[in-house]
């Protein structure tokens, strides 16, 4: 990226920020950080209101902007102990890892499906949270952030947050322990909470995964399912002692494994998280607040500006990609192309293309 490109890109970011939709809860209690060469070059910033924050972004436009999960009495104070934490949102980071620069963008739906499971099964289901306390945000690159703002969760400490991540990732789960022999094989019922109910519902939905041939027969399938509803897993001709192990194998898909357990976003409350509806400076995609997760398509809904066009030249080969219901590429090194501006900025920031001055 040369200085001209940089200037151009930041001016487009600045335009976006002039009427971006910010909904930062308790903005005056958050610490902010901005970055240009890195994701965060300087932190300990604080803003009294959205308009003050907006003003800053318009005149000092950064490539990245993030805010603390924590709420502080003195968000700008240093060192961190002097900020006096009041509480912190519970934040989950889900992302996709793939080899190569572009492979991840055709797999973003996997992360979305995990977000849906995280929210439906765990946050709304097991944890009994209400929708209004959950904010789903596209990260602007390879996944999603889920913010939980429920007041009862604000006070959790790092270890307690880590325990939640362990639970959602199913760490230490032993499905075999869900079963018990008392003349019959007893196990979890579909109406139970947590992993017990989840595994029972999953088996009921398709018992053929346990024994394809036996449960091809509808009456056998029904009898088995009726049993499970009462916690009795014995009503089949399967070798019953095989059931717990087979169930454990099927259950591997129940935890949400794309939740990042290492990145410390969840348990380290001094970390900053991308501001929802700000721009990700490696992609020019908006870290968009997701209203309807089922319909959300990041490579369409998170695009910056769909109207303008920009002329670029590719400086490396780029595979084809579905963006906003059209196919872009593959492009060859040296190829010149006029692209929608948001798509052009994406390739420039990925360092695959350069602007051709008009």
């Amino acid at each position: 990226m040369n200085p001209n490109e940089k200037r151009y890109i930041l001016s487009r970011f600045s335009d976006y920020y002039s009427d971006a939709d910010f909904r930062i809860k308790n903005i005056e209690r958050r610490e902010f950080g901005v970055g240009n060469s890195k994701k965060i070059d300087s932190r300990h910033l604080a803003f009294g209101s959205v308009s003050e924050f907006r003003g800053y972004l318009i005149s000092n436009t950064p490539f990245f902007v993030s805010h603390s999960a924590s709420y502080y009495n003195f968000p700008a104070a240093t060192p961190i102990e002097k900020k006096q934490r009041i509480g912190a949102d519970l934040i989950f980071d889900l992302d996709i890892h793939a080899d190569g620069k572009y492979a991840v963008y055709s797999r973003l739906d996997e992360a979305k499906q995990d977000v849906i499971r995280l929210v439906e099964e765990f946050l709304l289901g097991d944890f009994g949270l209400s929708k209004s306390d959950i904010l789903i945000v596209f990260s602007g690159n390879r996944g999603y952030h889920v913010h939980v703002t429920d007041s009862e969760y604000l006070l959790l400490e790092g270890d307690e947050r880590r325990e939640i991540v362990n639970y959602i990732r199913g760490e230490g789960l032993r499905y075999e322990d869900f079963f018990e022999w008392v003349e019959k094989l007893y196990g979890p019922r579909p109406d139970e909470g947590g992993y017990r109910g989840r595994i029972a519902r999953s088996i009921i939905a398709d018992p053929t995964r346990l024994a394809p041939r036996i449960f091809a027969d509808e009456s056998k399938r029904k009898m088995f399912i009726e049993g499970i509803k009462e916690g009795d897993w014995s009503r089949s001709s399967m070798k019953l002692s095989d059931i717990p192990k087979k169930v454990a194998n099927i259950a591997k898909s129940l935890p949400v494994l794309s939740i990042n357990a290492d990145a410390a976003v969840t348990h380290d409350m001094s970390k900053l998280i991308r501001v929802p509806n700000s721009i990700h400076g490696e992609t020019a995609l908006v870290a968009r607040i997701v209203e309807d997760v089922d319909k959300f398509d990041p490579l369409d809904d998170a695009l910056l500006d769909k109207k303008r066009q920009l002329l670029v030249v590719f400086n490396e080969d780029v595979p084809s990609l579905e963006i906003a219901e059209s196919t872009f590429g593959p492009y060859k090194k040296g190829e010149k192309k006029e692209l929608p501006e948001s798509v052009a900025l994406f390739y420039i920031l990925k360092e695959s293309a350069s602007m051709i001055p008009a």
Partner: protein
Amino acid sequence: MVGDLNFAVRYPFTSAAKELLRSEGLEAATDEIIEMAVQRIIDAINGKIRKSIYANDEEKKKDLLAYAVARVILGYLRNSYLTNKFAINESKKIRSFLDDENDEVVNTVANELGISSLDRNGQMVVKLPIFLRFTPRSPHYQLTNRKIREGFVAITKNEKKRMVEEAVRKHIAKTPLVKDPPEKIVLAAKRLLAELPKVEVKRVAQLEGSHPPCIAELIDSVKRHQNIPHIARFYLAVYFIGIGLSDDDIVSFFSNLPDFNEKITRYQVEHARKKRYAVPSCATVIGYGLCRANCGISNPLNWHKRAKEVVL
């Protein structure tokens, strides 16, 4: 019943107790009461749980005041070792009181600490965030092993008492800062410090090297005199045995723990060595909830091997 002095003297952190204290005031802290407060802290250092027997209400009031004065002393000293010791000892004492109480009293104390439970079809449940805040992080309390439903976790009566104990410990460990206590209390605090055996971080030479992040974090906690769960102590002990530390060194290191008991620690370390318990694999450490990074080493002992390879 709950408002009375017997209740307050057992549960001196409750609002009922505070109410009584407010009417007495710190000015009532005579030399005798200050001496009782100092003794109460010394008892905590020695892990001695002393349940007083009172001849009359006057003695109960004195005991209650002594608790308040002890907290003022700790708030003035800001010594995390002393405060943690005191918090653990007081919470254990309260636990032993709770074990003899009826449900009503247990519930009153629990509610006071924000641990309110509900009855769902004959099963006691608490809200999930409350469960997380007031249970120790040990396999027994892992969420994956729990019945969870719509934001509530099932618990037993005993587990509820354990949660109260933990809540009391946390409450007392967060002693507010006291800047300018009365002169008498300052003097008592100084005297207490002078009487103490030098409390310092016991260092063990071999521990200065490089350890996997999970171990490094535990070592750091112990050095700061923080309480760590039993499973973490077990893990540390077998790890130390694994890297070749002597029993003496291990026991000496554990003496930094706020509830250290030399006899028990030595017995357990010797037992672990005799039984040749293996250092748990990373998968098991994840199960303990102690894993801190994806090091890709499969067993914590491999950290050393890898560290050496990197150097070469």
